[in-house]
């Protein structure tokens, strides 16, 4: 018997973080820049929903509004932070390894494992707004050597296929966790099956754009679902240019999620 939850877009946390006042040292682009953030799981001010999915603690889509907007240089440890850019340009200054200044445009993405410690700043320095999805994972081990990898997803040549971006598949960016992130851009009428690696794995499915029937549930833009104790998840695309992110993970580090389920969900 598979398990499932559904999070509609309006049920997520929706925050606007301004760059003036008390947040001006954290948010870049003072005084008119601001960040909007929609969080699927509890994050910062938003503490009203699920605490995560397996080792995933953050899944959010963010927009940096205004030239110069973003996050000023700040430290991280341990978390593996992935960002997938969909519009605008993200200038990413990162101390991992010997230090990097990276510029990511639509289709580009990175995996930053903060490990024993690293700092980064993320800025939108071009006039258009920057759109990205952020994913934060607990690591397999604490204090790993910090690392930074980046790659590009070409949606023109990789349409109508489930393409692995992060994980252990061909050409995917490596990650220190039993986890895979895939992207599916597809057209109406197409069907796809995602076989789970084992019964101990689950998938978190987020519809970035368009509409899809995921098993029996219709998900529209920004809706998402988590499914586990299943062998396969079926997708039926309902609109052209539907864009789906699939995070498959071993269901570990989920004690707080089980407690949350116990307290909030009546099966």
């Amino acid at each position, binding site marked *: 018997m598979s398990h499932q939850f559904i999070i509609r877009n309006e049920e997520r946390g929706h925050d606007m973080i301004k760059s003036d006042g008390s947040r001006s040292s954290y948010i870049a682009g003072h005084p008119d820049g601001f960040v909007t953030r929609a969080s699927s799981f509890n994050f910062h001010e938003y503490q009203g929903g699920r605490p995560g999915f397996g080792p995933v603690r953050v899944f959010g889509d963010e927009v940096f509004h205004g030239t110069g907007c973003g996050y000023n240089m700040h430290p991280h440890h341990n*978390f593996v932070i992935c960002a997938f850019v969909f519009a605008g340009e993200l200038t990413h200054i990162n101390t991992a390894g010997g230090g990097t200044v990276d510029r990511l445009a639509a289709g580009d993405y990175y995996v930053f494992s903060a490990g024993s410690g690293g700092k980064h700043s993320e800025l939108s320095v071009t006039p258009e707004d920057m759109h990205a999805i952020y994913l934060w994972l607990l690591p397999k081990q604490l*204090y790993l050597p910090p690392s930074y990898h980046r790659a590009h997803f070409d949606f023109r040549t990789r349409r109508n296929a489930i393409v692995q971006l992060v994980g252990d598949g061909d050409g995917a960016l490596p990650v220190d966790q039993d986890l895979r992130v895939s992207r599916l851009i597809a057209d109406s009428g197409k069907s796809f099956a995602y076989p789970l690696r084992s019964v101990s794995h689950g998938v978190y499915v987020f519809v970035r754009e368009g509409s899809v029937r995921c098993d029996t549930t219709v998900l529209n833009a920004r809706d998402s679902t988590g499914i586990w104790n299943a062998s396969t998840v079926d997708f039926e695309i309902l609109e052209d240019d539907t864009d789906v992110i699939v995070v498959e993970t071993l269901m570990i580090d989920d004690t707080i999620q089980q407690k949350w389920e116990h307290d909030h969900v009546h099966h």
Partner: protein
Amino acid sequence: MSTEPFKRLMCLGCGFSYDEALGLPEHGLAPGTRWEDIPDDWVCPDCGTPKHMFEMVVIGYAYGQPQPSL
């Protein structure tokens, strides 16, 4: 002396970790300081996230870590 195993906790704002066995001597918390003995108004020394937004984790250290503080 408690026989309870030492816990590890991670800040959900930035990933900073607190290990009861190690404490944070540079922040006035001696090795062996239990999480429950840290005041409720304590915040993450790196990012200011409040104590209640730390999560207990059962995750091992990478090879060679943690390096002893000098």
